[in-house]
């Protein structure tokens, strides 16, 4: 029996080697599939959650009062070490370089206004926190080279984006920081809508700017050899109809469906060794306008939102404007001014500046008062508390009810205890808790295997919100990405 088995095994080997090798076989090697044909154009994101906050912006758009000073803040551009090009007191115009990236000296960061450099704000270890420019109100602009986006070469566009101050707005996966200009991205992805709490409606933001948006798309397309740019939209968004060089994928479902990382994951996921670039839709329009007009464009249509905002609405302004011009005079210790949305934004001083990558401000009540257990603390009925956990009865209320939320942590930090909390709000085929634990253990190999190449801190924002143990998930993911980048060199 044994001998027979052995003989059969030998025979099979010979058969495989001699007979099969000589028979012509159809080629089963995977070929490049035309994804635009195969892929379903509409993707339904089931996991996630919409946090129903009070203070959504009215659809009115006002021009914000022009502010006395503007600031460009290097910490907004993660992964960039700033090298100053100006000193305090220097005269600058709109589009004059204020500093450049130490890693890529060609990458310039331009002044959004004309005037004089008022101050260089430094933090610990003399780290540059902001370059503040006092506006002279004249809006004199540097004349930059105009680019024909339809015909320019990839190199010409890349150089122009660096010198015209537009490259810092390009992000990348992996690492979720400012892209490296010398890389060859596999694809470029733009999210056509923002799903975060109280987020601006992109159709209002881009109203009247679709020509610039198209020009920006053409420029980006040149960077990927003329391939279409992947644009994620809501189903049936008319504003994006008829665009050239875009491949539209429609996304249904709750936040974070609008996160570009989620859209990449569900269209063309990032594998180890691949690099994907991303850009915010409003920055795509700014890119198009800058390249075609030869004038640095740093426009922002900011959604001024939040329960503490007296009149939530949109303001037209510029990057780095004073937040005071958007808050309708609200200030003080009882209100928190957030540059950005409530999940990923930064806590700004009320005399601070709009962040370079922010398109929204949110005013929320500070929650720095202790809450008695029975009335507002952990034993309270909590009829006014929005929660994803169902331990408050408010999940029974109609979906139209909106809530006021303050900045209290609602408890103290604890070890991981409750499971199954992150997964329902994390629409990736990735195990979030295990990935976070591998980051905490700084196990690079495990992080790679568990899918860290695909994620950004913002994708974990809802996990952090929902966490019973109050763990700083986004900080941990950021550390993991930074360590990974360091490790890969």
């Amino acid at each position, binding site marked *: 029996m044994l001998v027979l088995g052995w003989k059969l095994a030998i025979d099979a080997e010979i058969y495989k080697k001699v007979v099969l090798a000589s028979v012509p076989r159809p080629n089963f090697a*995977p*070929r*490049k*599939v035309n994804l635009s044909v195969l892929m379903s154009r509409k993707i339904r994101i089931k996991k996630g959650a919409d946090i129903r*906050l009070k203070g959504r912006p009215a659809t009115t758009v006002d021009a914000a009062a022009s502010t006395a000073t503007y600031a460009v803040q290097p910490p907004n551009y993660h992964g960039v070490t700033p090298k100053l090009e100006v000193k305090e007191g220097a005269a600058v115009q709109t589009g004059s370089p204020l500093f450049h990236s130490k890693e890529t000296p060609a990458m310039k960061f331009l002044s959004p206004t004309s005037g004089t450099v008022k101050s260089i704000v430094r933090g610990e270890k003399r780290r540059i926190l902001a370059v503040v420019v006092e506006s002279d109100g004249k809006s004199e602009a540097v004349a930059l080279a105009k680019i024909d986006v339809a015909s320019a070469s990839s190199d010409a566009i890349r150089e122009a984006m660096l010198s015209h101050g537009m490259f810092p707005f390009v992000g990348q996966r992996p690492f979720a920081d400012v892209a490296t200009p010398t890389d060859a991205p596999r694809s470029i992805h733009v999210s056509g809508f923002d799903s975060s709490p109280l987020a601006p409606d992109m159709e209002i933001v881009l109203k009247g700017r679709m020509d610039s948006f198209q020009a920006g798309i053409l420029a980006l397309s040149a960077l990927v050899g003329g391939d279409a740019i992947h644009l994620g939209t809501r189903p049936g968004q008319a504003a994006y109809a008829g665009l050239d060089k875009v491949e539209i994928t429609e996304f249904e479902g709750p936040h974070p469906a609008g996160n570009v990382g989620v859209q990449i994951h569900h269209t063309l*996921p990032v*594998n180890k*060794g691949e690099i994907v670039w991303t850009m915010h839709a409003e920055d795509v329009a700014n890119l198009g306008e800058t390249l075609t007009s030869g004038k640095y464009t740093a426009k922002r249509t900011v959604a001024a939102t939040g329960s503490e905002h007296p009149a939530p609405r949109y303001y037209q302004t510029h990057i780095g404007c004073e937040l005071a011009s958007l808050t309708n005079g609200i200030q003080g210790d009882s209100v928190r001014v*957030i540059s950005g949305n*409530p*999940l*990923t*934004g930064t*806590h700004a001083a009320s005399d601070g500046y709009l962040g370079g990558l922010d398109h929204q401000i949110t005013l*929320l009540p500070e*929650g*720095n*008062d202790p*809450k*008695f*257990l029975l009335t507002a*603390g*952990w*034993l309270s009925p909590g009829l006014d*508390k929005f*929660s994803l*956990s*169902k*331990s*408050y009865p408010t999940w029974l209320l109609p979906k139209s009810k909106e809530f006021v*939320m*303050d*900045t*209290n*942590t*609602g*408890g*103290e930090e*604890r*070890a991981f*205890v*409750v*499971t*199954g909390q992150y*997964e329902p709000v994390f629409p990736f*085929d990735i*195990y979030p808790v*295990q990935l976070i634990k591998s980051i905490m253990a700084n196990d690079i190999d495990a992080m790679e*295997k*568990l*899918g860290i190449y695909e994620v950004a801190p913002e994708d974990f*924002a809802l996990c952090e*919100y929902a*966490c*019973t*143990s*109050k763990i*700083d998930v*986004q*900080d941990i993911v950021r550390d993991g990405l930074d360590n990974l980048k360091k490790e890969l060199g």
Partner: protein
Amino acid sequence: MKALHNMLDSIRPHFEEGGKLSRFWVVYDSLETFAFTPGHTTKNGVQIRDGVDLKRTMFLVIVALIPALLFGTWNQGHQYMLSIGEVSVADPLMMAFFDKMLIGAIKVLPLVVVSYGVGLGIEFLFAGMRGHSINEGYLVSGMLIPLIMPVDVPLWMLALAVAFAVIIAKEVFGGTGMNILNVALTARAFLFFAYPKQLSGEIWIHEVATSKAGGLLVDGYTGATALGQLASTVGKAPTEPAVMGVMDMFAADGMFSLTNSFFGLIPGSVGETSALAILIGAALLIWTGIGSWKVMSSFLVGGLAMGAIFNAMGLNAYMTIPAIHQVVMGGFMFGMVFMATDPVSAAQTERGKWVYGFFGGFLSIMIRVFNPAYPEGVMMAILFMNVMAPLIDHYVIQANVSKREKRMQLSLSQRATA
């Protein structure tokens, strides 16, 4: 409440670094954060946080335990009255309600007090030593432990079991959230192996032993649990009179009938007897999303599956107990709802929870039928699955990892051919 907070604030300096009572900082801190959710605000990352915290989560589990606790207290009194003939099975259940509650409470309350006293004492000690604040994990363990004990367990034995469980099963691993085994079940397993005589299934009714000696016991009342009775049939032919006598108890009009087992009018550990009371708790846990419905339902399916397999085999009297009857007896329901769902010691992945729960239930029934030395299989099955949970998770995650690797290979070969 301002006044209370001002008072806490005014005594705070004594407990802070350099104060006279600074070594009791943990006590002060835990009391203050118990009364007032601190005014901590978010910093980096999210600016808003969900209102739920570990205190609220753990508290809701305790609320879910209340039906089982109250019923268990009453039932201990009820069983005692039955055993001494004060009431009979035919009497209305509400008869002598307060007497039954009182007798039950006299026995059950000390268990709760000792469990919390010893357990929290150790927790405070370790928190003080490590310089971190008290974790809420023991609030639940401390209630679970008395509910899975025989009511006459000596208090010193209970204290020893609690100390063993908290120190060996939890604190040496790093405290709440780090343990591998379920803390409450470890306490019971400790007693089971250290003092097997006392947990053999003979002392499950308050004072039965003494009543026996005094000749007070009603005829034919042994006080053994359903599972203890059934364990005595293993290895004997189904036709033996003793076996048939036991099986009669499980018939529709017997002491351990399906109805009695479901409502819990039988001897057993304090909280485990009433499937109904436990299921009320389960409903709350599932409704609030705190207990995993996946673990509970797969555990139940696993138990029913094993029960059905035994029914089909029918090799001895024990195997012929209907599957549905099997799962309402003993600690199965309590283990399913409150032990297997412990998020720290269960499988952590959603897919793993199905496997973990199914085999937990499956093994519970298997152990109880195959091994009469362990009349209660649930404890062993869940502890075993606690140990297996990381392995289950490993394979679930590995499947995800290799899927990602395959995707990368495919993409590489696509680029190579393009």
